[in-house]
């Protein structure tokens, strides 16, 4: 137990760290950039959330560490919040004395205005400190709530915030649905929700979440699936499938384009998931296969480069073949490498491919920095899959095939060999697994899906440029499978939607996506390394102690097992 005085010191320290985080977010510019993006119109913006959230979280952490549940805890939170506020106040004060903007481009008047709530200096800082203290108090109060109410509340707030953020998407979608329009118009202001609808949503979603919580507790008692439940399950799946098929119609051209990108990343994610998730080979040069697929497609179908341009379908087997072959070529030299070395060599491979494509040396064959234009897109009979809305179906088919293959592979002999290699290479070898063939097959199947993604990417843009195949693409794909949960197939879908979809929809966010990715990767590894939708086996591996600890010791059936005396 901490001594009483040290609790308060701890609270101030924790608050100062929270303030420092908030300060960093301010100076990085994310606060001002999202300051106009309202969640509840006129009440709170996304930018303000970025200031409040660290204060709230660190105050909550203080309260939790203090481990007391009294009025003192609330005071602790307020102290933590106040010290966070003091740091921000110091920033404003400093900004008045010297021109911080000479160094920090984002220490703008807009930032000061946002932090002082548009008031003059004195009252503004006073209000800021007050709000910070109250925020800290609320953070600590969260700790005092019973666990299930806290969970429900957080869930509800997150959902309402998400709906507020997705205003543009919901507005666009609802335009095709006559009867919904007035409701949607009532709900949303020019940016974000209206105050009234926010309260309404809070109540409704909170109610649902609470009700579901109650049900999930009952469900624990009777877990057997009745026939009725099975019907419901199939019904939901059918509706979901219908929605997925209708999606481009519902969303319109602009959002279909985003949807295509998300789809391509999911496709690549499914491939990388085999390499990283199943076989445990960290591949940072995954973009190379994507590039190879796109460029092979380009070289074979573009009238600029090919003597006899092929159609998309004729060129596809060649493109996939070249991608798989390059997977084999990369796989060979790295067979003996593990972990970190493998990561950096594959990274080098990705860069070599990009540098070669960009070089003047190969310009006559690959187009150099100007890239390749007029790449063919898929056509089946009268159906032209050139537009974003039509190409979606080809990508969807690709994802469906990839998912099917991945699911089938996962529990096959090969899949189990991959997992054995991932867990312990030496033991796997000793058990008679051919590590050469197994590893090469992992690289080759990963390359296959990336190559397929590449051909579709080239078809979508009808062009391929070296700039499209940066190292960042590999990082995007890696992030999405890690967020989703390494080795987990539904995790890839979730990761793709969250990581690729959200930043595209929240345009203001795009500038900061890599900042957020980086932070998310670190926080994820620190707190929840198994991902959002983890594979069962990996969850066990990473939380061995936690899974085993709460179980009670099994009661000995016999006092004297084995007949020993």
């Amino acid at each position, binding site marked *: 137990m901490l001594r009483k005085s040290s609790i308060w010191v701890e609270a101030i320290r924790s608050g100062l760290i929270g303030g420092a985080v908030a300060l*960093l977010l301010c*100076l*990085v*510019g*994310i606060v001002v950039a999202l300051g106009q993006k309202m969640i509840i119109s006129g009440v709170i913006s996304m930018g303000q959330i970025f200031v409040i959230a660290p204060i709230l979280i660190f105050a909550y952490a203080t309260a939790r560490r203090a481990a007391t549940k009294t009025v003192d805890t609330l005071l602790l939170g307020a102290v933590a919040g106040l010290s966070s506020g003091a740091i921000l106040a110091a920033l404003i004060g400093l900004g008045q004395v010297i021109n911080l903007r*000479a*160094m*920090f*481009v*984002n220490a703008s008047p807009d930032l000061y205005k946002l932090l002082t709530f548009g008031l003059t200096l004195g009252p503004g800082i006073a209000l800021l400190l007050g709000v910070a203290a109250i925020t800290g108090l609320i953070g600590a109060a969260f700790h005092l709530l019973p666990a299930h109410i806290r969970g429900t509340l957080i869930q509800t707030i997150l959902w309402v915030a998400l709906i507020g953020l997705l205003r543009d998407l919901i507005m666009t979608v609802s335009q095709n649905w006559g009867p919904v329009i007035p409701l949607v118009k009532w709900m949303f202001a020019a940016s974000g929700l209206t105050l009234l609808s926010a309260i309404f949503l809070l109540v409704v979603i909170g109610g649902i979440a609470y009700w579901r919580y109650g049900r999930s507790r009952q469900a624990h008692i009777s877990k057997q699936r009745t026939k009725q439940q099975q019907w419901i399950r199939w019904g939901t799946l059918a509706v979901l499938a219908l929605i997925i098929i209708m999606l481009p119609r519902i969303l319109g051209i602009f959002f279909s384009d985003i949807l295509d990108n998300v789809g391509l990343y999911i496709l690549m994610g499914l491939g990388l998931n085999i390499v990283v998730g199943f076989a*445990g080979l*960290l591949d*940072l040069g995954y973009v190379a296969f994507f590039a190879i697929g796109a460029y092979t497609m380009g070289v074979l179908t573009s009238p600029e480069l090919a003597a006899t341009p092929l159609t998309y379908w004729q060129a596809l087997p060649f493109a996939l073949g070249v991608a798989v072959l390059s997977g084999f070529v990369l796989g*060979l*030299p*790295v*067979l*003996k*490498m*593990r*972990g*970190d*070395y493998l*990561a*950096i*060599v594959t*990274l*080098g*491979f990705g*860069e*070599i491919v990009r*540098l*070669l494509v*960009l*070089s*003047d*040396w190969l*310009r006559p064959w690959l187009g150099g920095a100007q890239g390749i234009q007029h790449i063919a897109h898929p056509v089946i009979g009268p159906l032209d899959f050139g537009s974003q809305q039509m190409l979606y179906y080809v990508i969807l088919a690709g994802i469906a095939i990839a998912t099917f293959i991945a699911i089938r592979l996962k529990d096959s002999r090969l899949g189990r060999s991959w997992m054995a290699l991932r867990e312990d290479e030496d033991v796997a070898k000793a058990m008679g697994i051919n590590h*050469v063939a197994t590893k090469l097959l992992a690289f080759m199947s990963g390359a296959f899906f990336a190559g397929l993604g590449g051909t579709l990417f080239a078809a979508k843009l009808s062009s391929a440029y070296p700039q499209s195949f940066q*190292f960042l693409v590999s*990082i995007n794909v*890696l*992030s999405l499978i*890690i967020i989703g949960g*390494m080795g987990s197939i539904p995790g890839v879908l979730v990761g793709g939607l969250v990581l690729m979809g959200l930043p595209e929809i929240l345009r203001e966010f795009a500038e*900061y996506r*890599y*900042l957020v*990715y*980086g*932070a*998310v*990767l*670190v926080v*994820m*590894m*620190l707190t929840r*390394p198994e991902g959002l939708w983890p594979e069962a086996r990996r969850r066990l*591996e*990473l939380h061995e102690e936690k899974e085993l600890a709460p179980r009670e010791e099994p009661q000995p059936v016999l006092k004297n097992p084995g007949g020993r005396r």
Partner: protein
Amino acid sequence: MLRTWRQRITFTDIMIWAIGLAIVGVVVVGTIKTLQSGKYEPSVWLDLTIKGLAVGGVYALIAMGYTLVYGILRMINFAHSEVFMSGPITAVFLANALAQSGFLNKQPLLSMLLITLLSMAVSAVVAMLLERIAYRPLRYAPRLVPLITAIGASFFLQYTFRGLYGSGFKGYPTVTSLQGTWNIFGVEVFKTQTVVIIGAILMMAILYAIVQWTKIGKAMRAVSEDKEAAELMGINVDNIIVFTFALGGVSAGAAGILYILLFPIVWFYMGFIPSIKAFTAAVLGGIGNVPGAFVGAMLLGLLESIGPNLFLDGLGILNPSQLKDAIAFIVLVLILIFRPSGILGERITETKA
């Protein structure tokens, strides 16, 4: 012995050796053709050599960060590129302020020292924060976990500095007394390159002395040998690890200032390529080995600056210097295949990694 050796040859070995031989063949043929064509005068080669040594010196100092951390934690600090970037990108503000006040050209030595100290301090602080926040909680996690954390941290730092200081390029002011050339033994040498080479050697010597001859260096080596035993001997392992990160940061900060003497432009993405090369250099020399990092870096610097003209020009490749980064990566792959222990190192990729 011979029989077992024959039995152990597999298809993959043959393929790998074929790749290796093909690359050696390209290098030899290219070199002969280039030299026969007589396209370049000897003075060109000398210039390229000195340039290579200067670049190699920068790589050596960055490589120190990788090597020190690897020696102790057996992990590759992927975010070291951002440790390297953070120093010079912050010190540029001091440099410009000094240039505006005219102090830079009045007292070039003192102001360069101040700029270097600031750069070192910032890099060291970033390295220590990185260790404290991202790596320490994961010290006993499965291997992939800290690696992914490092990649995440790297991106976070890059885009944090982009947000803080803006996304554009920033130029360093030129020091007038460092412009032009010196005549050393009848050879015209750029002053900046000379300063970089001398600075790098000096800094390497200091680092080597710290690791080899001070008490804390001894503790570092002890922790590197065996963490538990070192702890039992009364060494505070956490402090030693923090010190190691700080030392790597100081070295990277110094490397940053030497780097901007060669290429006086900073931006948030500047760390990526030099750091990958430095990592290659560390592996080339034998990672975990301080003199190895120096030897490897100098060698890589030379290969990269002479290589494109020497190996590729003779083969009729247009603008071979575009491919100098590719050469570095190919070198990395080749060492990891044929001599993973590096030039001066112990064998590690299979046993400890």
